[in-house]
């Protein structure tokens, strides 16, 4: 068998082909997962033996784990291609970028580092307080809970992120969280209302030319028809909207200092 890179022990990936491989494998993983569920459901509905559906689960799981490993390798190849360093082998078929045997996740600038996979104590059959060398980490229950709680995707950090990099002081609606979240209650509404009252007093609606028979009818019969909704609708017993506060501790809670007052020892500075 002729090896594409010449050397049978050379391990590497070719650039456009590995992208197609990873995307196709991702799609295959998704398809197999859906297939396993759908097939099981159909076979159960027909009261037929569901062994084929259960047997498809194993390839589906392995394809999914292969996909994650391939994605790691693809990220590494992209990184090497972007920075330009890394051993490459130019052949007739294309440029092969050398990859290590093990798929170690590459840190990509601009993205947070991949989460550290702590071995869970439940994965091994030993009791939690065990001292297995190189195996599970001996942790107290409280520290394990703290480690597993992740604050990356919580709303508080998302809100903080938007206001943090707020365009260097220049206004941009992308960083205007109250505007984006419909909290804006500015003075423009009053100006608009005043202009509306002036127009309706003079019955001057500008150069309105609707040509829509429904609009024309409504204009002619505005006073005669009893409208379901009163005019103006915003002046009838408005229910004040509950203000949307960004997530955080309520301001009414008394801020008690939890840190103890420091007790300084004798000053080391010589007088």
């Amino acid at each position, binding site marked *: 068998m002729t090896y594409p890179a010449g050397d049978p022990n050379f391990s590497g990936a070719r650039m456009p*082909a590995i992208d197609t491989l990873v995307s196709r494998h991702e799609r*295959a993983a998704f398809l197999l997962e859906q*297939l396993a569920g759908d097939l099981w459901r*159909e076979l159960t509905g*027909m009261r*037929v*033996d569901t062994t084929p559906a259960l047997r498809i689960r194993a*390839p589906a799981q392995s394809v999914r784990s*292969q996909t994650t490993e391939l994605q790691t390798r693809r990220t590494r190849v992209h990184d090497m291609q972007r920075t330009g360093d890394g051993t490459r082998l130019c052949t007739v078929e294309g440029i092969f970028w050398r990859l290590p*045997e093990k798929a170690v996740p590459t840190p990509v600038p601009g993205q947070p580092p991949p989460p550290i996979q702590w071995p869970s104590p439940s994965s091994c059959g030993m009791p939690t307080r065990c001292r297995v060398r190189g195996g599970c980490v001996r942790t107290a229950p409280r520290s394990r809970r703290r480690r597993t709680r992740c604050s990356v995707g919580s709303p508080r950090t998302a809100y903080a992120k938007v206001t943090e990099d707020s365009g260097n002081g220049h206004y941009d609606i992308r960083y205007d969280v109250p505007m984006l979240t419909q909290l804006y209650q500015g003075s423009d509404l009053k100006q608009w209302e005043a202009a509306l009252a002036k127009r309706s007093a003079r019955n001057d609606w500008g150069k309105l030319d609707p040509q829509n028979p429904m609009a024309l009818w409504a204009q002619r019969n505005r006073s005669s028809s009893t409208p379901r909704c009163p005019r103006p609708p915003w002046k009838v017993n408005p229910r004040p909207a509950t203000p949307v506060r960004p997530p955080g501790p309520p301001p009414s809670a008394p801020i008690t200092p939890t840190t103890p007052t420091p007790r300084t020892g004798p000053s080391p500075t010589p007088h």
Partner: protein
Amino acid sequence: MTDGAYEEAKRAVERIQRLSDDCWHALDASCQAMDDDAWVGPVARQFHHALRSGRRELQAQLGEAVRDARAKLATMPGKP
């Protein structure tokens, strides 16, 4: 009553056949990409081998599911 059950079973068999047809070639594209030497090396060869056996297993199980469903349909009392 039995006609309704038979029709329902026939529709289920058609659905299973369609599932099988849709997913028959699910792993073919990845196998082709690996044949085009997207990733080479000893680990890649193992992956290619595992991919081919996974594809064979998938197609075998899909065929068996369709066969079982059709056999079940054949045993049911059909339309007069």
